[in-house]
């Protein structure tokens, strides 16, 4: 079976198209976890870490809905006409997306699959997302 490429990214860092919308990386499936997984902002001790760190992965895995999503992605990756690229995006690409990507890679390797990982924005400092209406502020990762 050919290797599968897993990509993590942050929507805030993506280039934008003429319509002003972010252009996600090309993939067979793009999983937007900004709303699906709670922002782990409450876990202040991981703010300066990134998704390659086991502590961050632990926090992400214990976020409500994460285990189900991980199982779903692993099943999808194992489909007979399997995908070659799966991209996972969150706000800044530093915690949720990269952590989940590492966890998914671990799971797929455990199932005997060859995996290539690409973290597009994990190396960038965290950034605040400012909603358009400027009504609230959220620490985006």
């Amino acid at each position, binding site marked *: 079976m050919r290797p599968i490429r897993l990509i993590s990214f942050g929507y*805030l*860092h*993506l*280039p*934008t198209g003429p319509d002003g919308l*972010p252009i996600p990386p090309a993939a067979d499936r793009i999983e937007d976890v900004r709303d699906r997984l709670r922002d782990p*902002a*409450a876990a*202040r001790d991981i703010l300066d870490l990134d998704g*390659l760190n086991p502590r961050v992965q632990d926090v992400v895995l214990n976020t409500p809905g994460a285990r189900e999503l991980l199982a779903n992605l692993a099943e999808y990756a194992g489909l007979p006409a399997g995908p070659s690229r799966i991209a996972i995006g969150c706000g800044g690409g530093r915690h949720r997306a990269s952590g989940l990507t590492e966890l998914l890679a671990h799971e797929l390797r455990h199932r005997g699959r060859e995996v290539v*990982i*690409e*973290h*597009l*924005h*994990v*190396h*960038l*400092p*965290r*950034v*605040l997302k*400012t909603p358009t209406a*400027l009504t609230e*502020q959220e*620490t985006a990762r």
Partner: protein
Amino acid sequence: MIRRFRRCGHPPGALAPEDQALVDQFRAMLAAVRSPEPWTPGSGQDVAVCIGPFIERAHPRPGDDHGTEEIAVALVHPDAPDAAAYLHGHQLGYTDRGWLRCETTTILGAWQPAYALRTHAAANLHLPDDLGMPPAHYGVHLEACRSDGTSYTLLRLGPYPQTRLASRDADRLNTELEDQAIIAGSAFTVTAATALFNVSDQGNYTDPHESDVVDLLRRAVAQATTT
């Protein structure tokens, strides 16, 4: 006796492929420096920034890249997002600088891979301590002024990654402070102002994220009044 030397720059025969590749890379770098690609603010493109004799790759901070004189950037390893670049970037100090203030006059143009030859990473050098780019974090300082004219910092809020967020909270606090209800009974007046976030002093800051800054102010005033 006359000794005849070969000129080093003109050895006989063709260049070895690896030498030719290096020459091509060097020529590409010179061409890129001579004819930089214009950078469009807000496009999400990485930029090439001059730091002394070096050129570094920098990623503009989303929403904070429209300034005419200064923008906020993070320095990035030239080979990012390669896995090897992640580790190398950590080793050479690319990933621990946070957001930095970058004068737009130091921006050469949009980042091109040809510039990689001029980076600290290509020379395997650690980034210098002084990059000429101060941190781009901001804070809000609440200064308490006593009746005898002396003053002190009552509360430091931060970090704020964007100036407009810091300004918004400072404005909100000053509006609340205008009616004097918050500081009634205390022997001082308070004003809020934006300030640079002092990273080395971050233990003295209160993180405003997910908190109501007015509540934080009330608590600080109550604490100062009782002590």
